[in-house]
């Protein structure tokens, strides 16, 4: 237990890095995911095919492999990117594929009849998108979106392997020094658990708020 108390300041620092990485990756993957979903739904055939290929690759290749590629290969291509931003870009781009699936599925879950009905009462396309389709799609997208956010938070732990000092990295360093794996990794796990559990509770709360008149 003493070990844990002494390690707390460092773990706290690592937690801040994890929070920062997680927040930035969630934002980036959401934005990119929206773009990908829009391209997939309303882009031309070429864009749609490109997005489809991108999604296929991301679905089949581990995040760790992508992080390694960024970490080892980019310097050879003379691309210098600060490791923190590099990690965020890779994680964001990776989970954007999952986000795109969520958003696309949600939009497609709104029946065609809704479009036709909205047109029949004289709404224009932007109004239909906002007031009819998105209003219903956001409700459908809520739970899987939160799940994907949780995957993003957990995914950020992989940056410790390429040397970013997030809470997993800090935890491993401390364990190597103090040989107290249960306390330290338990604490690290608790950090992620708290974050992800809070997210899922928040998701459930939002769901109940949004569905009140549904």
């Amino acid at each position, binding site marked *: 237990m003493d070990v844990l108390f002494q390690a707390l300041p460092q773990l706290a620092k690592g937690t801040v890095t994890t929070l920062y990485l997680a927040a930035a990756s969630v934002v980036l993957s959401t934005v990119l995911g929206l773009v990908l979903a829009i391209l997939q739904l309303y882009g031309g055939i070429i864009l749609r095919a490109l997005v489809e290929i991108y999604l*296929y*690759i991301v*679905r*089949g*290749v*581990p*995040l*760790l*492999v992508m992080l*390694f*590629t960024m970490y*080892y*290969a980019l310097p*050879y*291509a*003379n691309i210098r990117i600060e490791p923190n931003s590099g990690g965020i870009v890779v994680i964001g781009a990776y989970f954007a594929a999952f986000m795109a699936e969520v958003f696309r599925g949600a939009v497609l879950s709104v029946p065609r009849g809704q479009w036709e009905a909205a047109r029949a009462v004289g709404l224009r396309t932007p109004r239909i998108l906002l007031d009819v389709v998105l209003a219903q799609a956001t409700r459908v997208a809520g739970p899987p979106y939160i799940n994907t956010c*949780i995957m993003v938070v*957990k*995914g950020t*732990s*992989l940056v*410790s*392997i390429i040397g970013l000092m997030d809470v*997993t990295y800090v*935890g*491993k360093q401390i*364990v190597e020094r103090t*040989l*107290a*794996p*249960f306390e330290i*990794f*338990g604490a*690290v*796990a608790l950090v*992620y*658990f708290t*974050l*992800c*559990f809070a997210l*899922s509770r928040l998701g459930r709360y939002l769901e109940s708020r949004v569905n009140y008149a549904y």
Partner: protein
Amino acid sequence: MAVDFTFLTRVAPALAEGLTNTLTLAAAAIVLAAAWGVPVVMALLSRYRTVSGLAQAYVEVVRNTPILVLMFFIFFGSGFAGYPLSGFVAGLIALVLQNGAYAAEIYRGGIRAVSQRMPEAGMALGLTPRRSFGLIVLPIALRNVIPPLSNQGVMVIKDTSIAATISVAEITFKARLLADSTAAVFEIFFTLALFYLAITAIFSGAMRLLEWRVRIA
């Protein structure tokens, strides 16, 4: 920077040495996780509040913890406790613990998706609740779970790469060693990605075939 694609033919055999480990770990993890999900879902659906509460707590804990941290916990923890596990076993346990929870949730969803009317109809025909579940609900639920189980299996295959961090000599581990000793990193990681794409494609293709074979025509 020029990408030398003839290098692929030299990289591929070196990576293939790790292929056995990746495939064994993935296959064992998928089978054991699917099996471990069964007692977990039975506990989740138990009518005893303590049992279902404990199962729910277990599911929440392993689902909200990164697989990397689970692997570290088990790998370094087992060594510290005096029962050192090999990286392979520690990685396998972590994968099974986490994905067993996911599998249990998938089973629960699959059972719930079967209309409540069906077991009722079975009971109306004189089946006991147990037989009604076994003969009517389960066969439909099992068909329901194939697609989500297949997706989870792909996740497991990809997550085996993380076992490289606890020194399991699978393909990502080999690729990293190669990348450290050569300057052909692009080619190495490109080949590595191709390996994973091939493995996941074969797996999901096989699952789709299974889904098609057991469909209700």
